[in-house]
């Protein structure tokens, strides 16, 4: 059963969000607990601390990482881009699961599309492979397809694409190569 995380934890003392705020100061920068899947927005540099708290300390242990996704918010069509209300950015989404309590939790974090707005410089996020070992492959996949650098990852390299592949296919402005080792693209 999926419950609103704030509801789950108020049953055991102070609300979940307050406990998280106490444990990791300046980490929570936003939340939407009314959404279809309630989520908490975390400052990117505090992600690993928050995850460690959620997995090892919090009263409900989120002991399993189900999925890491990066959503690229970039409108490539200039006509449509003039109309959209949001800023270009990357959104990294973590889906956590507690096998003991059978509840899920969604963490989101906003990253610049490129570090320091220099195209080619990957935005950085602390790796959570030290919290859940299963995060290793998920982070490699995100790095491979969406171009996010996970600092502190034990072995960050491409996983689905070949090692010499160029570009990050799930970025909205990705362009398919014309040629790869003599194989015609497009």
């Amino acid at each position, binding site marked *: 059963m999926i419950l609103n995380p704030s509801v789950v934890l108020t049953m055991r003392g102070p609300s979940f969000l307050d406990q998280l705020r106490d444990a990791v100061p300046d980490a929570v920068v936003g939340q939407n607990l009314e959404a279809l899947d309630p989520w908490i927005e975390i400052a990117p540099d505090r992600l690993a601390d928050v995850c460690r708290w959620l997995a090892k300390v919090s009263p409900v242990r989120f002991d399993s990482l*189900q999925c890491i996704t990066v959503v690229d918010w970039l409108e490539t069509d200039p006509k449509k881009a003039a109309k959209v209300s949001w800023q270009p950015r990357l959104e990294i989404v973590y889906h956590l699961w507690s096998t003991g309590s059978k509840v899920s939790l969604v963490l989101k974090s906003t990253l610049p599309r490129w570090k320091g707005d220099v195209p080619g410089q990957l935005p950085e996020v602390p790796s959570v492979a030290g919290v*859940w070992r299963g995060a290793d492959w998920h982070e490699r996949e995100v790095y491979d397809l969406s171009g996010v650098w996970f600092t502190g990852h034990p072995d960050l390299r491409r996983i689905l694409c070949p090692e010499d592949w160029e570009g990050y296919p799930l970025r909205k402005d990705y362009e398919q190569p014309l040629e790869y080792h003599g194989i015609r693209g497009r």
Partner: protein
Amino acid sequence: MSSTIDDDPRIIEFDVRTDEMLVNMGPQHPSTHGVLRLVLRTDGEIVSEVEPHIGYLHRCAEKIGENLTHRQWIPYTDRMDYLAAMNMNLGWALAVEKLMKFEVTEKARHLRVLIVELCRISSHLVGMGAYGLDLGSFSPFLYAFREREKILDLFEEACGARLTYSYITIGGLTADLPPGWLARCEAFLKQFEPIIKEYHTLLTTNAIFVKRTAGIGVLSRDMAIEYGCSGPVLRGSGVDQDMRRDGESIYTAMYDGYAFEVAVMKDGHYPRDHKYPAVPAGTVLGDCWHRFFVRMLEVVQSIDLVRQSIDRYSASKGTVGEPLKLAEKMPIGDAYLETECPKGQMGFYLVSDGSAIPWRARARSSSFSNLAVAPELCRGCLIADVPAIVGSLDIVMGEIDR
């Protein structure tokens, strides 16, 4: 006589350490279930390190999803876990329905349970048959495929396809069952049920099979959870979790009123309402044998669920729903939903900007997480045990590479 330390070939091997050798297994190796490449670092017969290389079947399904409407992506989900395509269709359809806050008709709900559980049987039959093949026993494969063919015949009659169905769709199902189908399905179940005993004789209680799987590749409970393993791999380690019972309400509502017990070892025994063979001596919870056995139990459980759904489907009136309009606009927002597929928890994540095309379509593969644990399980095992361990995870590469 009990076995002594001298009987363990690995211990003798340590006296004669040989040069380290890299052995390439796959991507065209029959026991790698598709195009998985494993690089083994070996010392004689002992494997010190296994490194899976994946991506040989990568088809950019997620990127394609950003260029198609929600309903158009269903055929691509077929090609993820192509052995359980019905379950994949359902996962995506439910994720979109969750975002739309849409509820299917009662008849569609029961037909979905029927089809999905039948597909689970066929997927587990492949898993079981191919696992026998991995361990050098050819007959179970033929026994399993003989029965699977009959399920595929039933599916062909219902939707026209034998493998990539696209039958379950957003809004319901593409068509109702043809006349006489239920009777043929019941006849199949009646004929199939006693055959499971043969499988248990061929594999589950077979002394050679037990010797090859008992105590091999033991996956501890904590490691299974930390790696995000799911499905029979997780339950084989004794974790009581099944999304059909523990998942989100939109998914569990589908199984509302159905009686089933999660196939997991609790208090030292498996659910007792069926006559299962006893757990052989030498097995350890979390080893290859237990992962295999959980699948066998789920076959029996699914037969039971199919029977229940036939009754409920026949009793319900109305239609099986209308497929969604091809270019239906979605509400703005995002939705993540995990369903219990035969291989594990398959998650679909959908981000919508309000248009008819998903802004982001994400497939969280269960086999991906299940395979990630293989290097841990294979560390220190014998080369011959690598196929036994990888086979017991029952992976399908189409889903890992997407």
